[in-house]
């Protein structure tokens, strides 16, 4: 029954499309289109009123032209006219045109909304569906404002036709996603949940998408859906393949609905009710059992539908992570798929197993498939499958198989696709460090990495190997020997030269006893690479040379000769020239003792989180590596250096969120606040919540660091602050605005500290410096109490110090692809915080940008598909951990509203940054 025989064909349209297809060139096509546009324009403007058919035909032609990629700037009005036609095809074309070419012209939107309103109240189900489709296709805020109240009513009304209910459910979902603030479910909640019981499978299928979305945002209000979903699922799973008639797809009963039900259940923890839980476990077992049954059809559609349900069931099992029996069965099932002849199944099995590997119940079971996965990495023809295999190897790695996995990854690197090399390098470096039992293995691995994939070894990787070698004296000799050997290769990567230069400069003496690696041999070897290297590497080598002079006085003459040569001492690069001149001078005039002191071996680096891990986190998004972070014990055993306490004041671990140390100002000129060295509880005491606290100033400093924190008739308090990583310094300036001195002036930070210089002269200013260290993320700001007597009266001021978590942001630049990948990885509900709020200031672009930059994040250009939106990224540096943070701000100038979304690997951080920032616009 081809459509063309049905009598609604538009001959003119078919001819036009034929003409376009026959155009021999782009120019001819444009010419033909322009001719048609002129023709249509004249028809629309002509005196003769067009009949519905012609109008439909021309509107359809315009639509075709638009879909070809040409701009259309007229015809909207005619399309709107078609909406009120009572001929179905005319109305339909009108709606299609509006859906594709929606225009924000407000006059038009009003007319469109009117037409939709008429159709919605027409009680003609076909017209109602058209109108609902249009709303869903456009999904604009104006439409949400006009119809968000009406659609729930249509959805739950007893006399609504099933097909209309289906459209209403999905239409509402679309509006909810676009404008959640306008869709208020309240009174409808329970009736919507009960759509899960509807007789009509189509209605349930449509409604469940809506319910899943609403449940994920408001799990508590919708939690009754769990038992309904379980019983519906159980009925489907136990039905014969013919029971559901049309809803059976290639012998699989209701695959779409089954998957949606399993997805809905993933919004919730396992059911508490024993009976419900039992029934669900039974369903999951049945689904797993069915996978072992012979297929009812050889068609790929049958197996796809069946396996789609199976994968969704496995996702649910992994989500619950509480049924060891099911987890192991799931793992075995995935293991079968790993060897399946269908590439699609192998791909999905590798992907699913990655999540399974992090469960303590199934980690061991996943590990048994190591050979298969390694084989996949070696032999899969499709790069996207190989990528999944590499991810899985990384996820399943532990102490027992680390050497094998690292070796396999290294050998894969030699032939790996360029697109994934950098990530592979980071993963190898992390695994090698994390599971290093002996450090010679670690050193070998990293040097191998540099040899195989030097171009993809980022600074973090080679910095890290140097940190580790410097901190572990048992590996220094081995490292020097190995790097010396590696440098023998006629062509070695510049990164190898950097590592070699650094390590030989520090520890070359450990291998100097061997005549084959005597000091001069070492020096000549390094210097033979010098001319091939870039400026930063040359600079590093010059430093290695001066260290050589200290380590091996016998090389002094040779090295001085090199430094003195024109190519060094007159080098056009300032840095190189300066180093050459200074090192030459230093080596000539300093006594041996001075030289030995200046050029002493590097002290051990303070213990800290691997910078490589941070780099991978940056690459993969924070969520991806949270497992490692929690794995502190294991790290401690294998790779930690002797932790040397760097600070005399170790904050008490239980209470301190923020270590604050006020110290004396550097100059003695101002009245000193005394040498304060206190640890302050940043958890605000009772006084923090007291009404007397002045909050206004505080919020103004979220996006800036300097300014006036507080001012009244007597006192002005100015602030200057600077932050680097997890450290900060804040200067407080207390200015006496009066001509009378303040007496008994003292400031307290949450807990009592020593008094400040008790007198502040009239017109004078005292300064106080506070050093700040962020230990972990925090919400409450430290509280500053200021007391003094002015005249006879006691003044008492409480202020929140504007120290907020965002001050510890390090901006992170990234490309769109990275951003979205990381965004996706932070998809757990608690990782996201969102606020929709009214603009309280102007919505000027530059001001917004300045504020977002002031927040401390990097403002990323060309990431969001909508250029009006802003996205930012940064890593919050605390002593305990680094928290990657992604931000999206969507301004809606018409509505004067913003939507702000924060995602980070830590729920408290997402929430706090969201709260802080929401007050800024």
């Amino acid at each position, binding site marked *: *029954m081809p*459509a*063309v025989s*049905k009598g*609604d*064909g*538009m001959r*003119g349209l*078919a001819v036009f*499309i034929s003409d376009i*297809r026959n*155009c*021999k*060139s*782009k120019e001819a*096509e444009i010419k033909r289109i322009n001719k048609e546009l002129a023709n249509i324009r004249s028809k629309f403007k002509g005196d003769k009123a067009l009949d519905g*058919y012609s109008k439909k035909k021309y509107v*359809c032609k315009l639509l075709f032209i638009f*879909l*070809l*990629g040409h701009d259309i700037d007229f015809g909207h009005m005619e399309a709107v006219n078609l909406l009120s036609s009572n001929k*179905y*095809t005319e109305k*339909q074309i009108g709606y299609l045109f509006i859906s594709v070419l929606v225009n924000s012209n407000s006059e038009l939107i009003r007319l469109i909304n009117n037409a939709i309103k008429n159709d919605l109240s027409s009680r003609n189900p076909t017209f109602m*569906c058209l109108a609902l489709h249009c709303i*869903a296709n456009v*999904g604009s805020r104006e439409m949400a404002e006009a119809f968000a109240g009406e659609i729930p009513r249509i959805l739950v009304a007893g006399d609504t036709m099933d*097909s209309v209910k289906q459209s209403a459910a*999905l239409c509402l*979902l*679309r509006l909810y996603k676009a404008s959640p603030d306008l869709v208020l479910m309240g009174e409808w909640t329970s009736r919507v949940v009960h759509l899960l019981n509807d007789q009509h499978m*189509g209605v349930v*299928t*449509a409604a469940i*998408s809506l319910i899943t979305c609403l449940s994920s945002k408001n799990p508590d209000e919708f939690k009754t859906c769990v038992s309904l979903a379980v019983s519906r699922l159980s009925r489907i799973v136990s039905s014969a393949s013919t029971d559901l008639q*049309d*809803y059976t797809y290639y012998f699989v009963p*209701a*695959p779409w609905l089954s998957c949606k039900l399993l*997805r809905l259940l993933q919004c919730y923890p396992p059911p508490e009710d024993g009976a419900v839980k039992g029934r669900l476990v039974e369903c999951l077992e049945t689904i797993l059992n069915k996978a072992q049954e012979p297929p009812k059809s050889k068609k790929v559609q049958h197996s*796809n*539908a069946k*396996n*789609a349900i199976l*994968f969704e069931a496995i996702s649910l099992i992994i989500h619950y992570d509480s049924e060891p029996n099911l987890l192991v069965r799931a793992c075995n099932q995935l293991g079968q798929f790993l060897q399946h002849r269908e*590439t*699609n199944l*192998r*791909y*999905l099995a590798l992907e699913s197993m990655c999540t399974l590997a992090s469960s303590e119940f199934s980690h061991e079971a996943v590990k048994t498939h190591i050979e298969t996965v390694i084989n996949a990495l070696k032999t899969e*023809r*499709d790069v996207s499958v190989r990528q999944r295999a590499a991810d899985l190897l990384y996820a399943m790695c532990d102490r027992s198989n680390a050497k094998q996995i690292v070796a396999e990854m290294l050998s894969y690197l030699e032939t790996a696709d360029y697109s994934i090399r950098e990530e592979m390098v980071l993963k190898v470096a992390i695994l090698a460090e994390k599971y290093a039992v002996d450090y010679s293995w670690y050193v070998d691995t990293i040097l191998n990495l540099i040899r195989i994939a030097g171009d993809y070894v980022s600074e973090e990787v080679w910095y890290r190997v140097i940190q580790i070698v410097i901190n572990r004296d048992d590996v220094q000799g081995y490292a020097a020997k190995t790097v010396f050997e590696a440098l023998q290769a006629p062509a070695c990567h510049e990164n190898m030269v950097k590592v070699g230069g650094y390590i030989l400069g520090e520890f070359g003496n450990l291998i100097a006893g061997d005549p084959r690696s005597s000091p001069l041999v070492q020096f000549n070897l390094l210097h033979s690479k010098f001319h091939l290297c870039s400026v930063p590497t040359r600079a590093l080598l010059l430093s290695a040379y001066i260290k050589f002079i200290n380590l091996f006085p016998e090389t002094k003459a040779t090295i001085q000769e090199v430094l003195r040569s024109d190519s060094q001492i007159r080098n056009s690069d300032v840095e190189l020239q300066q180093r050459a001149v200074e090192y030459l001078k230093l080596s000539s005039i300093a006594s041996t003792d001075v030289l030995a002191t200046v050029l002493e071996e590097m002290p051990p680096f303070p213990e800290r989180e691997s910078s490589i891990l941070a780099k991978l986190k940056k690459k993969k998004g924070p969520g991806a590596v949270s497992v490692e972070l929690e794995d502190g014990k294991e790290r401690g055993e294998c790779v930690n250096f002797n932790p040397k306490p760097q600070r005399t004041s170790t904050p008490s671990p239980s209470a301190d969120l923020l270590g604050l140390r006020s110290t004396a100002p550097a100059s003695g000129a101002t009245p000193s606040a005394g040498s304060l060295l206190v640890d302050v509880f940043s958890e605000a005491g009772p006084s923090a919540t007291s009404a007397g606290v002045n909050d206004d100033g505080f919020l103004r400093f979220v996006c800036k660091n300097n300014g006036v924190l507080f001012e009244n008739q007597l006192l002005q308090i100015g602030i200057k602050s600077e932050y680097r990583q997890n450290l900060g310094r804040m200067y407080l300036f207390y200015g006496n605005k009066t001509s009378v001195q303040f007496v008994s002036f003292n400031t307290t930070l949450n807990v009592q500290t020593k008094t400040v210089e008790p007198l502040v002269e009239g017109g004078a200013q005292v300064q106080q410096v506070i050093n700040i260290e962020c230990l972990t993320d925090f919400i409450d700001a430290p509280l500053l109490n200021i007391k003094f007597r002015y005249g006879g009266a006691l003044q008492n001021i409480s202020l929140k110090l504007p120290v907020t978590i965002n001050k510890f942001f390090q901006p992170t630049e990234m490309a*769109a*692809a990275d951003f*979205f*990948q990381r*965004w*996706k990885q932070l*998809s757990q509900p608690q990782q996201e915080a969102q606020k929709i709020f009214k603009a309280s200031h102007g919505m000027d672009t530059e001001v917004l940008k300045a504020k977002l930059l002031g927040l401390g994040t990097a403002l990323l250009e060309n990431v969001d*598909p909508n250029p009006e939106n802003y996205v930012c990224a940064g890593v919050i540096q605390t002593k305990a951990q680094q928290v990657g943070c992604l931000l999206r701000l969507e301004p809606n100038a018409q509505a004067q509203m913003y939507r702000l979304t924060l995602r980070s690997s830590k729920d408290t951080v997402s929430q706090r940054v969201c709260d802080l920032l929401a007050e800024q616009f």
Partner: protein
Amino acid sequence: MLRFLLLFSRQGKLRLQKWFTPVTEREKKKVIREMTLMVLARPPRSCNFLHWRDLKIVYKRYASLYFCCGLEDQDNELLTLEVLHRYVELLDKYFGNVCELDIIFNFEKAYFILDEFLMGGEILETSKTAVGIAMEEAETLQEVTPPPPPPPLTHTHGHLSLTHLPKYVNMFSVLFTDNGGVYE
């Protein structure tokens, strides 16, 4: 949910585009370009899934046409393949042995059928009969219009093979040696 659905030919000519979330025209062009480049470059027998930005891409080739969609992280890839298949079945049922020409000349019908099946990127109705009935009802609501039907299309030459038969593929490649210009 699906974010978009694209139909394009082996030559990279776009035949249908459906966007389920608001996307600027510029961004649409970019996505279309990247999708065609990426998917057309895949060697045969590769898996049907890809990662791209924060989306999963699922694509499948039917005769000379590629059906390609972008879906969100939680969505099920295998089932999405069957969404594509069900759409091809619906087109086939409506047009009878559907071929690329049907979709070119009756593009509005291809959109209407899609609307009966998907809404806002979610499944609206999975029953082939129910979608068929909805289309039938729509047909009966149409009054016969005065102009004569357009010239018959030669879609006996090949259809979007539901079984991937290579002979159809070959026929299509002969039939659709593009004469330039269209859908660039």
